[in-house]
């Protein structure tokens, strides 16, 4: 067991898989010699060699395209897209090619590619270094979509993703890389004070398709993922609401039974995510909850999300869902 922040946990997951499976290779922009702009792959090239961990040309469409070709022919590529905002130049390769390969070939061809991409806001990154594009990919059949919220899950889920025979989009909330940001940019709790920063050193898996109940509660269910797990947790503590907090962890496949069981108990539900509201993954969660828990619901389900605007620079903290907005959504769910 070691104490790790999220970056170290991701690196440890890559390291374990590079060690176990010679077909695993890691590449992307600046990931080789330098070890990635967020340092997730630091030291891996020195340890495993340039043919297993390497820099690529600055072209995301190319990166994912070659990853598919490699994956179809026996490798398990783990490309990094430097920021999830830069997945769009690879959108065609991801959504038309990677996602549909198994289906279009009647199961003959597959490519077990895991695309890592730092996502989310809170780093003053403006429009193009802050986006949460998960809904584009959950909307595409054939892709698994994962977003861990702490070091232990990050490593365990990354190992499961790399071993998964289906393609996985692995979002890493970059605001959490070096601290358990919970809504206050001035006071970011260090990971070393968090129990989830105790990460097993060797190989272990955190299964895809299993949500985590972060905090049990009776009065309202809060469903969220990524950075918002911590913001919601702080909002719950501050407001002293007895909320049940669910970290979805993998959006596709979604662990619906855990959510349904919780809402059946609490009768109230709010969904929180950073991404814009309209057609965000929260809309799917709301639809499923109302379908499965209609007779248990005591109040309308409320969404707390980013606004339907691009992610702004100067007004970042007015855009990001805050503790206050989450608390007020819980209050409104409880008021009915």
């Amino acid at each position, binding site marked *: 067991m070691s104490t790790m922040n999220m970056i170290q946990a991701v690196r440890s997951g890559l390291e374990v898989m590079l060690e176990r499976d010679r077909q695993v290779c890691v590449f992307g922009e600046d990931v080789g010699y330098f070890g990635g702009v967020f340092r997730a792959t630091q030291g891996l090239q020195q340890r495993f060699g340039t043919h297993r961990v390497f820099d690529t040309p600055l*072209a995301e469409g190319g990166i994912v395209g070659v990853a598919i070709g490699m994956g179809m022919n026996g490798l398990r590529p783990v490309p990094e897209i*430097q920021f999830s905002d830069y997945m769009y130049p690879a959108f065609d390769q991801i959504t038309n090619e990677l996602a549909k390969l198994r289906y279009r070939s009647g199961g003959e061809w597959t490519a077990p590619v895991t695309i890592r991409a730092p996502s989310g806001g809170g780093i003053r990154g403006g429009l193009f270094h802050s986006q949460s594009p998960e809904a584009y990919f959950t909307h595409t059949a054939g892709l698994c979509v994962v977003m861990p919220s702490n070091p232990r899950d990050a490593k365990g889920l990354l190992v499961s993703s790399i071993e998964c025979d289906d393609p996985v989009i692995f979002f890493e909330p970059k605001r959490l890389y*070096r601290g358990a*940001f919970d809504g206050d940019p001035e006071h970011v709790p260090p990971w070393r004070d968090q129990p989830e920063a105790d990460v097993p050193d060797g190989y272990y898996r955190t299964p895809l398709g299993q949500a985590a109940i972060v905090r049990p509660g009776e009065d309202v269910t809060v469903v969220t993922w990524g950075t918002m797990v911590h913001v919601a947790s702080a909002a719950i503590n501050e407001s002293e609401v007895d909320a049940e907090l669910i970290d979805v962890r993998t959006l596709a496949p979604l662990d619906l039974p855990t959510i349904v069981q919780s809402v059946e108990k609490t009768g109230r539900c709010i969904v929180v995510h950073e991404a814009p509201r309209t057609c965000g993954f929260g809309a799917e969660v709301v639809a499923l909850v109302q379908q499965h828990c209609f007779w248990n619901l005591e109040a309308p389900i409320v969404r707390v999300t980013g606004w339907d*605007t691009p992610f702004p620079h100067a007004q970042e903290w007015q855009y990001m869902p805050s503790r206050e907005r989450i608390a007020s959504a819980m209050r409104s769910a409880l008021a009915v």
Partner: protein
Amino acid sequence: MDDSKILIGKANPSSHTSAAAVKDPLPLALRVPAAPYRPGDLPRFNPFHQQPGDFSRPDTLAPHTELRDHAAGLIRVLGDDGLAAGPWQPSIGPQQLRSGLEMMMRARHFDARMIAMQRQGRLSFHVSCKGEEVAAVAGAMAFASHDVLFPSYRQAGLMLVRGMPMVAMIGQLIGNRCDNAKGRQMPVHYSWRAGNVVSISSPVGTQFPQAVGAAMAFAYRGERRVVGAWIGDGTAAQGDFHHALNFASVFRPPCVLHVVDNQWAISTHRNTSTGGATFAARADAYHLPGLRVDGNDFLAVFAAEAWAIERARRGGGPTLIELLTYRRDAHSTSDDPTQYRAPEEANHWPGGDPIDRLSRYLIRNGHWTENAHRDLNEALDQEAAAAFQHAESFGTAATGLGHPTESLFEDVYTTMPPQLTEQMRELQTESSPPSAETSIIPFEAQNKRAVG
């Protein structure tokens, strides 16, 4: 019988060549290029072997085939002796050269001041163009003011030449009320419509096909305006580079496309962006002229720009210009190049410093003096300092950037749709956001990292 096996045949054996049958095989392994120098290495560069006068200056309507050598070579005007020579000497007077020098020095002081302010926590981020000021300044000066320009984030000098007030530029960096783009973007993503400069976005290379489209609009409407666009060596790997060249090749609209080869894309050396050929040489495959130019030689760059712009304006179509230079500073203030570059690489590289080279040339020809240079440095230092103070008076991260809540929801559409109006009300009725803004990208202090 198992039906599912019916269609599964065997691969035709003749389609397989066994390894033993390969004639004189070379060792097979994935080729992964290494940068020439990394920390701990002593960089050794050869001096430029191309000299001023090595390359002809064809008529501006010459076929692209007459420029193949220019695309593989290096067009120079200022020689190693500091003198100007050869057919590419531009028709530009001492006064214009002095203003080019001044603009480059202004850009340099601007960068130095902004980096200092970032270190003090008064800016979140900056990108410096130190050492490659020519690309932006000579480029922007050679275009006519009604020509439309699509710079990258590393062309502050272009904004200055196009008349964007330094205060407005700093307002953009701070993201306060004097940012004409309303604090929407992260620092160095300027927009200056008044000077025909298109808004800069972060996804690299997207401006290249857009610039070709802008030129197509001018051709379509019969307006004799030329479009300029700039990307980096790393960005030349993007699909958008090739989209731009192919459309430029097919439709031949009036544009000048530039690759500023400063040899690095964050930590990635140019040799991972191209497998060997120069960037300019790619033009030939598209039947376009390519010019590779000493990018730290103001005279050569100005001359190449003037040639390509004249060609476009006469109706001769697009040109690809590669400017060979060196990124002297970090990629950005979030980056620490000592992690991946040999420390003295910039000083060993033979291209020198563009400001030194032009000022020495002017001094030698009696058009400039050491004293004037020193005075100008002092004046520009004060100008940048004063501009920063002035810009801060419109709001800071600590005192508030001064954007009303509505601003967050405006400019998404021409008029605000009802669902946004409702979201705006929702935000206005919620409690206020966390108190003070953090002034820097958060993990800066613990571990430097790069951000686009």
